[in-house]
């Protein structure tokens, strides 16, 4: 079972917001704690600041107000960085390098000895089901497989916190559902806290142990709800009445927050 224990938060935001230099508020000051072993989905339409929030969590973007802590430290500190992995919207792989070299990159940057690095790369590739493709180059893989490589690169450093910014947004529905299920399985096996940005209601309802719904202009949190539905969540869960009720509830919240008729 993955009932999150109420240990000190893996990620903590205190009145953290971001305003662009031109005065535009990307994200109003928010308070948010993400606890260890939670799977949090940040859900919202484009421009609601969910990617901004994720980038602040990763230290890629500074909070212009308030403070962000990852495992109790500044996300830009070395130890925080070591406990964190970030998966971008695109696979962001090096086209000249093989799959194995791409996955090994963070270990090479940290000067991990080659033998240990290779064995960890093999483990990570096995986790995402790409062991047979270690010698291929990214252009030889499908979009879904490239994203798996990107996730393997995220897992190879054995992070405590995995941040994913709409990783499957560009994929077809079938591939996306399969990757969702695989990601959920990986999360269940590993001692991992996940924050996952998506604009898909169904994806959030399927994946999350907790959904944080956001609305735009200015970016803010409008709902924060834990989903009690147990794991594992099989594919048929997507067609169950309770799943549909969750999706409907999320949709109503978004429609209300964005001022659109339901």
């Amino acid at each position, binding site marked *: 079972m993955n009932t999150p224990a109420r240990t000190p938060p893996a990620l903590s935001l205190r009145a953290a917001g971001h305003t662009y230099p031109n005065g535009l508020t990307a994200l109003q000051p928010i308070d948010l704690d993400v606890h260890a072993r939670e799977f949090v989905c940040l859900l919202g339409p484009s421009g609601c600041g969910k990617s901004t929030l994720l980038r602040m969590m*990763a*230290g*890629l973007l500074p909070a212009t107000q308030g403070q962000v802590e990852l495992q109790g430290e500044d996300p830009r500190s*070395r130890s925080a*960085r070591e406990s964190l992995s*970030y998966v*971008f*919207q*695109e696979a*962001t*792989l*090096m*086209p*000249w*390098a093989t799959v194995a070299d791409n996955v090994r*990159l*963070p270990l*090479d*940057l*940290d000067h991990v000895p080659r033998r240990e690095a290779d064995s960890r790369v093999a483990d990570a590739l096995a986790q995402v089901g790409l062991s047979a493709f270690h010698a291929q*180059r*990214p*252009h030889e893989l499908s979009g879904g497989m490239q994203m798996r490589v990107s996730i393997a690169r995220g897992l190879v450093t054995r992070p405590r916190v995995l941040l994913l910014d709409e990783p499957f947004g560009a994929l077809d529905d079938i591939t996306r559902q399969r990757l969702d299920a695989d990601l959920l399985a990986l999360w269940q096996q590993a001692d991992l806290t996940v924050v996952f940005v998506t604009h898909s209601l169904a994806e959030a309802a399927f994946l999350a142990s907790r959904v944080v719904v956001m609305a735009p202009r200015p970016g803010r949190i409008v709902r924060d709800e834990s989903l009690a539905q147990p794991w594992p969540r099989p594919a048929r869960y997507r067609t169950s009445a309770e799943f549909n009720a969750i999706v409907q509830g999320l949709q109503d919240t978004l429609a209300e927050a964005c001022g659109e008729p339901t």
Partner: protein
Amino acid sequence: MKHLPGWSLPALVAILVIGLWQAWVSLANVPTYLVPSPWRVAKTLWTDRALLGPAWWVTLQVTLMAFGAAAAVGSVVAFVFVQNRWLEAALFPYAVLLQVTPIVAIAPLIIIWVKDPTTSLVLCATLVAVFPVIANTTQGLRSVQPGLLAYFELRGASRWQTLWKLRLPSALPSIFTGLRIAAGLSLIGAVVAEFVAGTGGTASGLAYQILQSGYQLDIPRMFAALALISLTGIGLFTALTACAKLALGEWHESERHP
């Protein structure tokens, strides 16, 4: 079309042009001192080999040294530019200045200032060839996928790691473009410098042979020297294309589907 090797079409054009040239010269009885036939040029290449061979070797050496110098200096300057925007802003206009100043105008000065003839020729040719290396390498080192750059930043990569593991491989296609242009320009620079030096009395290289042939109205030898220069240029270009294919063929769009 798909099954023909890449060189077959250009070869066909060459055969056609040379054939027409030969036919025209023979049929219209064009005097040799105006336009020699291709056959006559080929014969001269063989009969004057004792003269042309060493001259070719001199020009090739100057070209290769200038190319090496342009590649080395150009790359170092580009690396420095990428590390420091201020330096780039301060110095780039002078790189452009170097490029737009006609080498024929400054070659006489260089040849006067630098006593050693080979060094002065190499210096002239390097000046001609260095700019495309600087411009293309700088552009290549900067044209990095923003996502990958963000990833390197996120992982706390050092400047050196970012340069070596990300910028340099990303820049390879542009670097090869720069090198290909620089190879041709090294040859042109070498020949131009030899011309200037040759008119000043320094005997060396194929350009000097062309000058001498002109004075002696030995037009076939002039054409033979010219053909050697062209063939050398084609050879350099082909060699660099092969290198690019070796380095990029596995992954870059420009080489993947020839």
